[in-house]
């Protein structure tokens, strides 16, 4: 899935002494639409922000598999169970691809996982909410994956080659996630009264996290100009949110379902969607560890590392020397 609402570091203009000549060549290369490869010279801040971005994205894939993973044993019917297993496996695979892409920038996978477990690295906020019913799983599979696809297609046009290559593979698999999510959601929406109620309840609960998904409104983020120029950030949060609303709100409404925002509508003059700003205070609260599931997610992840350790140790050979992936 998933990488909405990235949190970038403050850009630190004065602390870095990037060679101005090399910086110029670098920026010209990006302006020409060329990609940057791991061994190329790059500005200090470019490397730092990319590690942060790709690492958050990788964590989001891994943690994102947890709320859905809990439903594998309870998925209604064999086909849905198989599809959910396949999807969750894909998400873990996405995490692996992204960790490797981040590793090309010089941070080891172990350090990234340490930072995740220590709460230093973030992941997409939506995964700090519980999947209470099967309807939640269909809402996640349809709408959260939809958001992720918008985000990932946008990012795949960025400047850092290993990240783009990983995203290309990922986007291919996401199309299956979206379709199976949509099918599950339509099944409930066109089902019995109780099924529709269950789905409506899930939509009501997930709407705010979904509105948070692409991150705070543009007017609140002041650091994106250089990141846009370097093609690290490829579209503004608000633009991606608009694209999401424009494509997916009609697909909810056509099923006679509602979204819990009376102001939500498309302004036919501006062609923009109007909505009530979600509570951004809640967003920051959850990012900083106080969401309903933050602790559970990290502890389950910790459990997995602890319980996998003896297997990893058993397989360890004597002559391992660290190397960085090439491409």
């Amino acid at each position, binding site marked *: 899935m998933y990488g909405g609402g990235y949190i970038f570091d403050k850009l630190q203009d004065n602390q870095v002494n990037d060679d101005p000549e090399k910086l110029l060549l670098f920026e010209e290369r990006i302006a020409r639409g060329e990609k940057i490869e791991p061994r*190329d010279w790059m500005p200090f801040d470019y490397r730092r922000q990319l590690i942060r971005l790709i690492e958050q994205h990788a964590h989001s894939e891994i943690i994102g598999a947890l709320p859905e993973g809990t439903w594998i044993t309870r998925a209604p019917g064999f086909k849905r169970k198989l599809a959910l297993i396949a999807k969750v496996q894909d998400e873990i695979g996405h995490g692996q691809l992204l960790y490797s892409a981040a590793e090309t920038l010089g941070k080891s996978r172990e350090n990234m996982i340490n930072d995740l*477990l*220590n709460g230093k690295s973030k992941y997409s906020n939506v995964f700090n909410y519980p999947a209470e019913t099967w309807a939640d799983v269909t809402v996640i599979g349809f709408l959260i994956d939809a958001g992720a696809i918008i985000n990932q297609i946008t990012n795949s046009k960025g400047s850092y080659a290993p990240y783009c*290559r*990983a995203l290309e*593979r990922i986007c291919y698999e996401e199309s299956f996630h979206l379709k199976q999510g949509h099918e599950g959601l339509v099944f409930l929406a066109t089902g019995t009264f109780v099924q529709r109620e269950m789905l409506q309840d899930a939509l009501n609960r997930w709407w705010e996290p979904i509105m948070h998904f692409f991150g705070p409104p543009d007017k609140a983020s002041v650091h994106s100009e250089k990141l846009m120029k370097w093609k690290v950030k490829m579209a503004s949060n608000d633009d991606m949110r608009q694209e999401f609303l424009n494509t997916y709100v009609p697909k909810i409404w056509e099923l006679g379902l509602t979204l819990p925002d009376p102001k939500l509508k498309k302004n036919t003059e501006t062609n923009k969607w109007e909505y009530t700003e979600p509570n951004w205070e809640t967003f920051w609260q959850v990012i900083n560890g106080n969401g309903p599931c933050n602790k559970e997610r990290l502890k389950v992840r910790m*459990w997995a590392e602890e319980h996998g350790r003896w297997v990893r140790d058993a397989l360890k*050979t004597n002559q391992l*020397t660290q190397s960085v*992936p090439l491409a």
Partner: protein
Amino acid sequence: MSSLDPRINRLELPQIPGGEILKNQEHWITYEVFHIKKRGDHPVHVGCVHAPHPDLALVFAKEQYGRRLACVSLWVCKSSDIHAFSMEDEDMFYSAVSDEKKYRDASGFKVRDKINKFKKGNSDALV
């Protein structure tokens, strides 16, 4: 802590100790993966996996890169065993595509104009 997932409630979830939880190389080293789509095709680099040795690298490569789409085989090799030119030196390959080396290329040899001219000049004589 009570989870919505009954299996999680049955676990004894650990406290997170903080500091360095995983040591470097606890996730082993990286292998580059090459994918062969069908018999007769070149292996194409598709990414990498973490593994302790080549056998397991192949297993992980199959999970990661052979899960979808056609595949008849995969290759793996240690990332550190790959030797490459620096992309900064890309200009040294320029001559291969420059016009100066047209004599290496089929398009550097033109005969049709001459043949046509020859035919035209001789058409009377040939009758």
